[in-house]
């Protein structure tokens, strides 16, 4: 697949620079360009920091700003950031109330964040929330389990709103951990992705096939299937999600259809329509909706469906104002 790029080595840095240039009202680079931070911190507020490999834009940089993250560290493509990036972000963003690190559940991310914590813990109060919203189905359960995927946005938004209200570090961690258990995401891909460094596709699928259960790193999913009509695909995603989480009658939910990079808005809305119908038939009250390209896997054609079961308090936090490059809600 073709890309707008100059060299594989410089593409992440160039893209980041473009992002910061375009969104100077929200963000600036942190020290040494090791991370992207809010233009203005709020003293006394717990600092929320996230990060991960590049290739998932606008996550996380697009979620930096009032109401959401304080800083985001970006690694190379699909490669978690290094501990020094994370340490620098902690040092700059912590205004005294401590730091909450929001980490997607990947061995690489966890190890790099852990090393950073070991380096910074003597000078900062640090807690972590590990997001693992991916469905379990199709895997064995013996392994490390669920990946952190599109549901990360939901966690960052809701903790972000809570942090803005001045809640303390431990309380924010509690909110995040509780919420994480009530979010499920499943993805499907119509194409693999080309890793720019090596001009190689992670996998290729025939025109009549799709890859079910993919994450956001261009990796294969848990099964290759025949390409179906959108309604059938969405039904499968929604059924798998629903089977993987306990939905009580009259549960309130946020339904989120996320594009993986190469799928245009029109198709995402069509998919949302099918997902919404499915959930309402199951008596899930879809109270809030989100449709868009927020958590990508380079230019993968595909999408994920996320269901987040929310309490009334969490819905209020979801509705709180946020002003970032990628998510915007007015007061």
């Amino acid at each position, binding site marked *: 697949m073709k890309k707008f790029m100059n060299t594989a080595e410089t593409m992440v840095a160039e893209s980041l620079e473009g992002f910061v240039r375009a969104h100077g009202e929200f963000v600036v680079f942190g020290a040494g360009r090791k991370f992207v931070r809010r233009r203005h911190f709020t003293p006394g507020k717990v600092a929320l920091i996230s990060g991960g490999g590049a290739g998932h834009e606008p996550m996380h940089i697009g979620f930096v700003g009032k109401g959401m993250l304080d800083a985001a560290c970006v690694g*190379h493509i699909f490669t978690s950031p290094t501990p020094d990036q994370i340490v620098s972000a902690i040092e700059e963003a912590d205004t005294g109330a401590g730091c909450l690190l929001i980490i997607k559940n990947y061995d690489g991310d966890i190890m*790099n964040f852990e090393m950073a914590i070991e380096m910074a813990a003597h000078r900062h109060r640090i807690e972590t929330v590990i997001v693992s919203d991916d469905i379990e189905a199709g895997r064995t359960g013996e392994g490390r389990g669920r990946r952190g995927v599109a549901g990360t946005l939901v966690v960052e938004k809701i903790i972000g709103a809570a942090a803005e209200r001045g809640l303390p570090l431990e309380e924010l961690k509690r909110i995040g951990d509780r919420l994480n258990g009530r979010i499920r995401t499943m993805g499907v891909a119509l194409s693999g992705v080309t*890793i720019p460094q090596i001009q190689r596709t992670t996998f290729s699928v025939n025109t009549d096939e799709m890859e079910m259960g993919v994450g956001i790193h261009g990796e294969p999913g848990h099964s290759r299937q025949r390409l179906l009509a959108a309604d059938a695909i969405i039904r499968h995603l929604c059924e798998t999600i629903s089977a993987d989480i306990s939905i009580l009658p009259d549960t309130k939910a946020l339904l989120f259809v996320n594009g993986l990079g190469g799928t245009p808005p029109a198709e995402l809305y069509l998919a949302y329509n099918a997902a919404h119908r499915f959930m309402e038939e199951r008596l899930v009250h879809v109270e809030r909706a989100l449709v868009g390209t927020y958590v990508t896997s380079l230019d993968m054609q595909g999408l994920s469906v996320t269901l987040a079961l929310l309490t009334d308090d969490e819905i209020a936090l979801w509705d709180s104002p946020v002003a970032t490059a990628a998510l915007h809600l007015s007061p």
Partner: protein
Amino acid sequence: MQAEPVLVLGLIEACRAVITANTDHLCALDCAIGDGDHGSNMQRGCEAVSAEGAALSKLPLPDAVEKIGMTLVMNVGGAAGPLYGTLLMEIGRELRARDGTDDFPTVLKKAIDAVARRGRSHAGDKTLLDVLYPVQDALAQSSTLIDVARRAELSANLTAAMKAMRGRASYLGDRSIGHVDPGASSCALLTTAICHYFGENHRI
């Protein structure tokens, strides 16, 4: 036996060379069951270490090895960075604590255990540990350099039959079976390159 500065520089170059020659191969292995970046990650680490070669060669061996580990941690990222970084940092620290290289297998054992703790992983999980443990075992049995290298390569190949329990490949479940683990492969390549270097330079 070589002087330490020459040794350090020689090993750095030997490792850099083998990774550079296999970057694409390692990425291809990672494409099959991961995210396709293992070769680039390792190469970035090797380049960063090479760039510090002059400074490193002036340090005592334990300090040099620990510093190499830190450089890997700060430049590689992903899973490979903390894992290889921890390995070398711990080897350096153990070497320093023991004030010499006389019991390298024990040094290595401690370092590998640190890697396993960092990765919360075990032998049989289809990771670079499945090369590190056998290599350590071979060294403990005073195998020849050629046999150590052979054992490393064989062990890497054996990961093909395993189901991944850690790292990105674990998300594939049974679909991970049949593919060699990229981290195991890089580990075998590095082991072989190091053995070859010592062999050529009449050390051990």
